[in-house]
């Protein structure tokens, strides 16, 4: 069957299409070359078409999210989703149940979202959970850098090739799309009762510094040919003055690509009476100067949420700000940890207000929209349902300045936001939410509408109120099938799970196997996921290309 979409203004930055009126053709779930034959036609005159949006960093599944759901019981009670003809019931906003997660993303025009913090030992449970995630494509970044075996290998002076083998083995064993490191060395250090870890500080037990971990992991990911650079949550999250750590982390990568995640939480200075200031300009300057650095912002929005992080060390510090006053901390299986702290960000609170402004400064001061990604670090800064509001803040200066005028007065004085004239264009939004995420994740045929690409398409009605426009797509197509029409979910087919499968020297398996045999509570054969079991659970895996880049 061939479907034709006619008359819309198309924004397809990956193919250089910048709002021109184009007809699009869909055949067998993919974009097709123009043809005279069409079995079905949609007249989209006056509407705006973009590829389906892709969320590069969103905590949507896994053990940590389930602990978040536990803590957010009250919100779940107040936010119920009714069962529908094509849909399951659900609940929650900050930690929505898995069905509600898929439906809401789809209703916002998103066709993929990636879980950024999968602890290796939780990989099976995480993937089995995402088997229930409807509509959108998915994938996960495996958390490394606090796993005791890696730290021991680094401490013992393992060569880079060995680390590469280890990373490749772990990615395959856990069916990962990327590699994340969270507070490198810090989660392990917290288990030894350390309460902080600076970038050049030797951690307890192993004597390994975060800098060493960043160097070896960023290089491993590059040399293995994993498309997505090391996805890093730097040390000292949330600590005033942490900009120095963030800039030192960029330097530690030594030119190897790095993706700084939720950079807003890592862009703080110590100036002013309150010893808390924006360092967004300093980070933006560094990013503008270093083409190998990308980031997602982790914008905060005012209101209730829960912070969910692998960073137990930071979350233990943050417990003091828990609202409501409850929190969960968990040490995990000698390979990671997680911490859940509910937060209520307030515009009347100086720190929260300035965090809000810092995120927007980053969006507006980083010049290249291909290297800055639109996220709230769902749910840490805010639920992903805030994205339309965030898009309006970026596209509409007068609206932004109205919002700025409502926050804590001292925070207004402490930000340059009001003086920034930049407004994102529709093309830039299409880059930051579609083309660039697909490119940096190495998702072939996603985030673009060229012939052969997946027919994941979002259709918006033009509206000067960009929040209203992006909140309610007219149509959303997934793999060529219309699954959302004016907000209603028409169908909920499962999406794909994206993985990469780097190669490794099989000798590494002896090293990992011996470690598991002697120390771990699970055997190697059972730790490793099999494709058969994932298929049995209903997941369809798509392996993205991975080309080794050799020694730099």
């Amino acid at each position, binding site marked *: 069957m061939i479907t034709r979409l006619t008359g819309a203004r198309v924004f397809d930055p990956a193919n250089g299409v910048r709002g021109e009126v184009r007809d699009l053709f869909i055949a067998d779930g993919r974009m097709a070359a123009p043809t005279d034959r069409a079995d079905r036609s949609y007249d989209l005159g006056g509407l705006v078409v973009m590829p389906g949006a892709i969320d590069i960093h969103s905590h949507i599944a896994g053990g940590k999210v389930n602990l978040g759901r*536990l803590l957010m019981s009250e919100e779940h009670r107040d936010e119920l989703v009714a069962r529908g003809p094509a849909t399951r019931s659900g609940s929650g906003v900050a930690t929505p149940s898995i069905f509600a997660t898929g439906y809401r993303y789809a209703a916002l025009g998103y066709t993929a979202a990636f879980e950024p913090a999968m602890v290796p030992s939780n990989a099976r449970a995480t993937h089995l959970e995402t088997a229930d995630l409807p509509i959108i494509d998915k994938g996960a970044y495996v958390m490394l850098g606090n796993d005791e075996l890696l730290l021991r290998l680094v401490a013992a002076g393992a060569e880079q090739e060995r680390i590469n083998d280890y990373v490749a083995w772990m990615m395959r064993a856990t069916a990962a799309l990327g590699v994340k490191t969270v507070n490198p060395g810090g989660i392990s250090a917290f288990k030894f009762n350390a309460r902080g870890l600076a970038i050049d500080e030797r951690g307890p037990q192993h004597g390994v510094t975060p800098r060493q971990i960043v160097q070896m992991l960023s290089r491993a990911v590059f040399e293995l040919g994993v498309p997505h650079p090391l996805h890093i949550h730097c040390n000292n999250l949330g600590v005033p003055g942490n900009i120095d750590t963030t800039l030192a982390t960029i330097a530690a990568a030594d030119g190897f690509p790095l993706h700084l995640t939720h950079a807003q939480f890592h862009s703080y200075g110590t100036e002013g009476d309150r010893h808390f200031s924006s360092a967004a300009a300093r980070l933006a300057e560094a990013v503008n100067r270093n083409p190998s650095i990308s980031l997602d912002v982790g914008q905060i929005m005012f209101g209730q949420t829960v912070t969910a992080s692998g960073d137990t060390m930071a979350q233990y510090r943050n417990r003091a700000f828990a609202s409501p006053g409850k929190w969960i901390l968990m040490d995990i299986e000698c390979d990671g940890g997680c911490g859940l702290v509910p937060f209520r960000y307030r515009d009347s609170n100086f720190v929260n207000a300035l965090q809000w402004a810092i995120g927007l400064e980053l969006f507006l001061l980083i010049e290249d929209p291909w290297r800055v990604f639109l996220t709230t670090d769902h749910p840490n800064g805010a639920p992903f349902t805030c994205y339309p509001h965030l898009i309006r803040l970026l596209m509409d200066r007068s609206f932004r300045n109205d919002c700025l005028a409502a926050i804590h007065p001292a925070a207004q004085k402490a930000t340059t936001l009001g003086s920034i004239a930049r407004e994102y264009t529709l093309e830039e939004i299409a880059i930051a939410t579609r083309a660039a995420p697909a490119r940096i994740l190495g998702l072939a045929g996603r985030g673009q509408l060229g012939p052969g690409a997946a027919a994941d398409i979002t259709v918006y009605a033009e509206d000067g109120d960009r929040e209203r426009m992006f909140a309610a797509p007219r149509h959303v197509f997934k793999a060529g099938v219309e699954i959302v029409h004016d907000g209603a979910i028409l169908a909920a087919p499962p999406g794909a799970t994206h993985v990469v499968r780097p190669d490794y020297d099989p000798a590494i398996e002896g090293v990992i196997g011996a470690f598991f045999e002697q120390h771990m509570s*699970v055997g190697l054969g059972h730790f490793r996921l099999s494709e058969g079991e994932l298929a049995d659970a209903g997941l369809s895996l798509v392996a993205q290309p991975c080309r080794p880049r050799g020694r730099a």
Partner: protein
Amino acid sequence: MATHTIACPFCGLVCDDLGLDQDRVDVRGCAKAAAGFARRPAIVEHRIAGRAVPLDEAAAAAAKLLGGARLPLVSGLAADLAGIRGLIALADRLGAVIDRWQSSAQQANLALQQHAGALTATFGEIANRADVVLLLGADPAARQPRFFERLLRNGGALYRTAPPHVAFIGPAAAAPADPAVSERVFVAEDALLDAVGALAAIGEGQKLAATTTLPLPALSALAERLAAARYGTIVWDIAAFPAAARGAALAILLRLMRQLTRRTRCVGLPLGGEDNAQGAATAMLWQAGWPGRLSFAAGVPQHDPWGNDAERLVAAGEIDALLWVAALTAAAAPKSGVPTVAILAADAPEAAAEVEIRVGIPGIDHGGAMLRADAVVALPLTAARPSGLPSVAAAAAAILAHLPAAS
């Protein structure tokens, strides 16, 4: 020599070092695993009112019975993860209540996490670090026969240079015999809450007046040991506490762990997880937003710890149909007085059910996955003796397929 190692689904440890040679399982000395893997099918046909029928016919009858009820209850839930996922889907579609059977102890642990939080760790973390261990209420080996072997007497612990100091606090009759236990402090069941309170109070520096009901010197010494520990671990069996004392005991334990964490590390480990209890709670969390005690009757999930308690609903006669599911166990459906569909393992005795569907045991008849009691690690289950028996997931899907299209 075993040709494979397989995981065992018969307690919350889900040990994965059992040997499988042909169809013989080396249970590594575990009595629960021995009993579990000795289970053999007795009744394999599906039945409607005692008459043997194909699965599809039984599923159609089950759909009719359950679909016509005003408030059906889905309970038992002793199934692998795929089975649980399928049963929640069925409950959602039926507008049913879904809740595990006899889960009040598990719900007490979960309620504390919901309303106050937790400080906790997984088995692998505890096995490699714990240097001072408190066992509260009961012998962990009663639930998890290899608890001591796997977590506290394990060789090769990474960050423990000597065996841990393991102390038991609880009734003498429930004291563990395991040689890993170095100290036994006897406290009657009805004084357990006081003992926990005293431990926490001493830990916070309070001076307690002498009492005859509590061994204060021993508790003081244990409070000091926890404070001096590098990685203290408190293990409790909340079912061993009087029901009315559970909430308070858990809140005090959390307070104690938080207090200790200011200066050192201390984590808690609730015992449980039998019959994939943790898998059921977690799948309900991800599919609906709460870990049990769920009703879909209003077309939305609603969590009511009292109202949606399966045992209470049956006792109060508030349901008009029951779907009972027991594959990991051979447990019979409770007497409910309402029309019943029973999805049962093939070794369970004949059921007093209108519709009986016989399924395999996950990890014996078919593969699957089960979540360990520590809620993080899911293990793959192997078909140790593959059979043609359907899985709970297949049975649930068959019933769902016979329900009229959702409106």
